[in-house]
């Protein structure tokens, strides 16, 4: 059987500059893969190439055994973009944003069916936002908005889900909530491909880590501890946190007090 995702000899250029070189990667159904590496290593670009958002300069990508150019079953693919906010120029409720995840499975001009409503309700349940369903997404915290975007991808009932830095800028309690949601997906047999700088509470879920460095795969195997991914030249006295749990110095005081 062909792998769920097959990347062969892939090269991606951004404005003429190569960002990914000679990438070969195969992900089987049911795997939970973390794409890791420093900023600018190409891990997000790889996910964007596999989801068809970035064209390849060379090589080939197949999803479910079909080359990307002829791939039609996009309803089987869930995508959670790296995004600080789910809000836009006009208020949108949590229900509306999550329901837009059903689009790949809905017919034109057709009303919402019972199966659509059930999938939306289930997705909200998995991310634990059922009681915020009528609220405007703009009133949610950053971590909650990230979970809305995950619920939106889940609502399409995908067989594979790509998450681009879901933990970036999300505080620790929300990272734990995220880990719980992804744990449910893993149990259901959904293939998960996750871009992360650092795994944190997600570490126990990860079956396989693929580390990228300067556009090439430098490691592919069992997950490493966070410290091993980032080579440090100085002996350190304490564990350094790469993803700050706060975005500005003023917020830290508030959080400590909670």
């Amino acid at each position, binding site marked *: 059987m062909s792998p769920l995702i097959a990347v062969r000899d892939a090269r991606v250029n951004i404005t003429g500059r190569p960002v990914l070189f000679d990438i070969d990667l195969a992900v089987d159904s049911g795997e939970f893969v973390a794409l890791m590496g420093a900023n600018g290593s190409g891990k997000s670009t790889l996910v964007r190439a596999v*989801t*068809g*958002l970035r064209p390849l300069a060379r090589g080939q990508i197949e999803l479910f055994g079909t080359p990307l150019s002829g791939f*039609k*079953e*996009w*309803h089987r*693919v869930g*995508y959670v*973009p790296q*995004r*600080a*906010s*789910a809000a*836009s*120029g*006009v*208020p*949108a*409720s949590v*229900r*509306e*944003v999550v*329901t*837009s*995840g059903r*689009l*790949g499975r*809905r017919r*034109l*001009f057709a009303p919402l069916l019972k199966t659509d409503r059930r999938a939306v309700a289930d997705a909200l349940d998995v991310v634990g936002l059922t009681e915020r369903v*009528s*609220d*405007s997404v*703009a*009133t*949610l*915290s*950053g*971590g*909650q*908005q990230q979970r809305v*975007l995950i619920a*939106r*991808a889940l609502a*399409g009932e995908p067989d594979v889900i790509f998450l681009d830095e879901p933990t*970036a*800028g999300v*505080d620790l309690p929300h990272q734990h909530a995220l880990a719980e949601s992804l744990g449910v997906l893993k149990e259901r047999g959904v293939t998960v491909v996750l871009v992360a700088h650092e795994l944190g509470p997600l570490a126990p879920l990860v079956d396989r880590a693929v580390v990228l460095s300067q556009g090439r795969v430098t490691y592919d195997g069992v997950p490493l501890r966070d410290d091993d991914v980032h080579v440090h030249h100085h002996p350190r006295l304490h564990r350094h946190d790469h993803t700050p749990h*706060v*975005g*500005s110095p003023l*917020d830290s005081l*508030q959080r400590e007090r909670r």
Partner: protein
Amino acid sequence: MIELLTYPFMVRALIAATVTGLAAPAIGTYLVQRRLALLGDGLGHVAVTGVALGLLTGTSPTWFAVLVAVVGAVGIEIIRERGHTSGDVALALLFYGGLAGGVLITGLAGQSASRLQEYLFGSITSVSAGDVLVTAALAAVVIVACVGLLPQLFAVSQDEEFARVSGVPIRFYNLLVAVLAAVTVTVAMRTVGLLLVSAMMVVPVATAQQLTRSFRSTLGAAMVLGLGTALGGLVLAAYLSTLQLDVAPGPTIVLLSLTGFALTWPVGAWLRSRHPVSSEVMGV
């Protein structure tokens, strides 16, 4: 006063105001959602050239305006998609080119500036029966598309990349929004004029979202507000004209709409203060 409302020219004006009041905020909601609130303005300026071409050739200014505005809208969308020029500069170039071209061609056509002014600031009370029919038909297309394709247009405007990975043909829907906006500009042309078109597309949406929490309710409330201010402004202008005050309907509609926003904004500010955005950091 009541008698005034039954005059044939006034009935035609009321019909034009009704369809414009409903259609402009419908497409306007998507424009505001994509942070393209000024697109209507740009298309309005481009349509001036279309009107002038209609005057020059002695044919229909309305259809020429539709044609040129649609071409302009597709052009803007292609520039936006390619991302070569920043969107606002591209819009600005179209603003000036459209307006200058329109004024120049009107002069060449031997038409006075006052003829063009009918289109720049609207002349709803001089709308012909044929114009009403065209306006109503075009507005109906806009309303049906904006309401019927809400799931698709919402998703594409909310998060283009997500919609693309969902398999939605985003280029088609992006072009559709641009073309609908262009059509709406010409629909509203006779009511408030090309220079004030954008107000009817944007102000009711800005007012509605002071009070709403969802996209659907914003769209609905904006259409109700648009209808209310279009009819209210027209009737108010008609009433003031019976008092020997020379008040044009177009600006009256826009100012009434802005008054609505001014009155609603404090309520929205108060609501937002009750549900502040969580203090948690919003991303990186």
